[in-house]
């Protein structure tokens, strides 16, 4: 029986990125104002000294030791398992084995980091290289590998829509609960840094040579990041059985596409405007109800200009505090919607607004600027989280205090 009015609650969160290996470390890094960018160490590249990246500060070996996964699974699966496990442990749902549980996980690179290792040796001599090192590298395998470890079997799916992937995974998960397909969903996503993404973004000329400066007039691009972020979404029925406070509800969501260009947003931010506007409509809220926006804010001239234009169109003249946490984590691509959904849920629970690091100069065509300070003890009732992807794939999520 479908129950479309059913509220979807967030019962647990888990995250790993360049600024921490768990939720507590992230909160500490935000408070200290410490960004996670540095020189790349994961692989050899001609871009090593010129393109800072935000790597998770654990090697593959350390992640393997921590997760117990085998070596040929790829870094995306390793990161995914760390954050998804933290989220499930955090939710601590009593009697989970009797409930219908889903895993909706997003990623864009799959096991490409391992494929790239294999390819170098194989290209030099096609009798070299072990096939087990290119087995299970498609995006869907990341989800299956992690679901096996989590013991989730009732519903699995993978979403890959570029940088809005895990925001879409979260609202897909919410729809599964609202339609009574499952009782609990672990939803979010993961992505590891790979040569392909680094070189691809470099080709598009949107990597900053310095640490990124989201929403600054003199921004020059993004820093590539990696990580994973998951929410545990539960139905009303399950929420009533929990022994600890819930974080918030997912009150609104929307995905809109401006079909403008393969990689660029339309200059007027049509897709981002529609996503924010329709997410508000879905939640029944007005722009003035939003207390904080976690911007997509990649730091590229195109994104921040388009997103800023869309924010202006929707919120003018009263702007809520807003910031891009990519100034800490870099752009974690398919993981970013999940990572930032975790930040949004934490913002509501702990009353936090995160600083937009390195902001100096307001963009010339915008009448607002992002928050620079770490603010505590804020009364946040509604938080919007934006995730906009290549292909014009734009998603906004709204989280609300209970």
């Amino acid at each position, binding site marked *: 029986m479908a129950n479309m009015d059913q509220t979807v609650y967030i019962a647990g969160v888990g995250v790993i990125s360049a600024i921490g290996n768990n939720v507590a470390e992230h909160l500490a890094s935000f408070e200290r104002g410490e960004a996670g960018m540095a020189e790349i160490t994961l692989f050899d590249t001609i871009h090593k000294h010129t393109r800072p990246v935000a790597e998770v500060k654990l090697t593959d070996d350390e992640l393997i030791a921590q997760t117990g996964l085998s070596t040929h699974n790829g870094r995306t699966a390793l990161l995914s398992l760390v954050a998804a496990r933290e989220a499930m442990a955090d939710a601590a749902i009593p009697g989970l084995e009797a409930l219908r549980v889903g895993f909706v996980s997003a990623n864009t690179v799959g096991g490409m980091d391992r494929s790239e290792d294999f390819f170098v040796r194989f290209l030099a001599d096609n009798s070299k290289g072990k096939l087990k090192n290119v087995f299970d590298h498609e995006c869907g395998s990341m989800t299956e590998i992690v679901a096996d470890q989590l013991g989730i079997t009732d519903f699995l799916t993978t979403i890959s829509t570029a940088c809005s992937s895990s925001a879409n995974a979260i609202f897909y998960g919410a729809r599964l609960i609202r339609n009574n397909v499952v009782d609990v969903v672990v939803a979010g996503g993961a992505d590891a840094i790979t040569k392909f993404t680094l*070189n*691809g973004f*470099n*080709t*598009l*000329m949107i990597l900053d040579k310095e640490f990124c400066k989201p929403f600054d007039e003199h921004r020059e691009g993004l820093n590539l990041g990696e990580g994973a972020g998951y929410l545990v979404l539960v139905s009303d029925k399950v929420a009533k059985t929990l022994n600890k406070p819930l974080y918030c509800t997912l009150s609104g969501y929307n995905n809109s596409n401006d*079909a403008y*260009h*393969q*990689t660029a947003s339309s200059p007027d931010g049509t897709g981002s405007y529609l996503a924010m506007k329709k997410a508000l409509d879905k939640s029944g809220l007005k722009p003035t109800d939003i207390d904080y926006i976690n911007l997509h804010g990649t730091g590229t001239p195109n994104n921040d200009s388009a997103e800023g234009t869309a924010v202006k169109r929707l919120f003018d003249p009263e702007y809520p505090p807003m910031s891009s946490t990519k100034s800490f984590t870099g752009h974690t691509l398919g993981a970013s919607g999940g990572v930032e959904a975790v930040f949004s849920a934490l913002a509501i629970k702990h009353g936090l607004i995160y600083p937009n690091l390195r902001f100096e100069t307001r963009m010339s065509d915008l009448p607002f600027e992002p928050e620079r300070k770490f603010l505590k003890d804020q009364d946040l009732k509604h938080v919007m989280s934006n995730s906009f992807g290549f*292909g014009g794939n734009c998603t906004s999520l709204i989280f609300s205090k209970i």
Partner: protein
Amino acid sequence: MTEKNHITSSCSISNGTVNKDDHKAFENHGLDISAFLLSVYQYFHFNYPKFYKMDNLSKLGWLAAEILLQNDFHKYNYQPEEIGVVLTNSNSSLDNDLKYFDTLKDIPSPSVFVYTLPNIVIGEICIRNNFKGEHAFFIQESFNADFVAQQVNYLLDNNILQACICGWVDVLGREYKATLFLVEKKKTEKSLLFSAENMNSIFNKN
């Protein structure tokens, strides 16, 4: 129980020739592929500036779809979500991938890079026509009409789509061939039954 679906239009572009349904619509021999595709664009008086930015795979597929849908496709009877695209080829986006690879010697070209995926041609067709239905791109050794029929019948018979553009769009170097079919649920005067046999017959004729 499979419903009966129908090929209500077809278009092939290969060997310097454009065929629409069962007649020759244009021919222009002896040109390289870029010049030939431009001559098709000009002959049909298309006006779509974005055409000039496309790679050859997208140009070929876009032109075939434009000609396929000319005249009698009453697309406005369908909702955007009711029209889908299922394409196949054997060389993926390799034609453009190699051109991109050449640019690496100098400065990697962003405008070439964004066409290094085969399904971009589906995006170009959908953006042009405001199609928002299901779409898929399959890479196979050669044109597999049985496979295409199975995919498209599934989408139509389960009411996931009401109309579907399907077929083959392939470019590599000097070689190119596109054969597209418009498949609808309704029979028309000149429509053919949507079957692997009929697709093969049109594909092999051109």
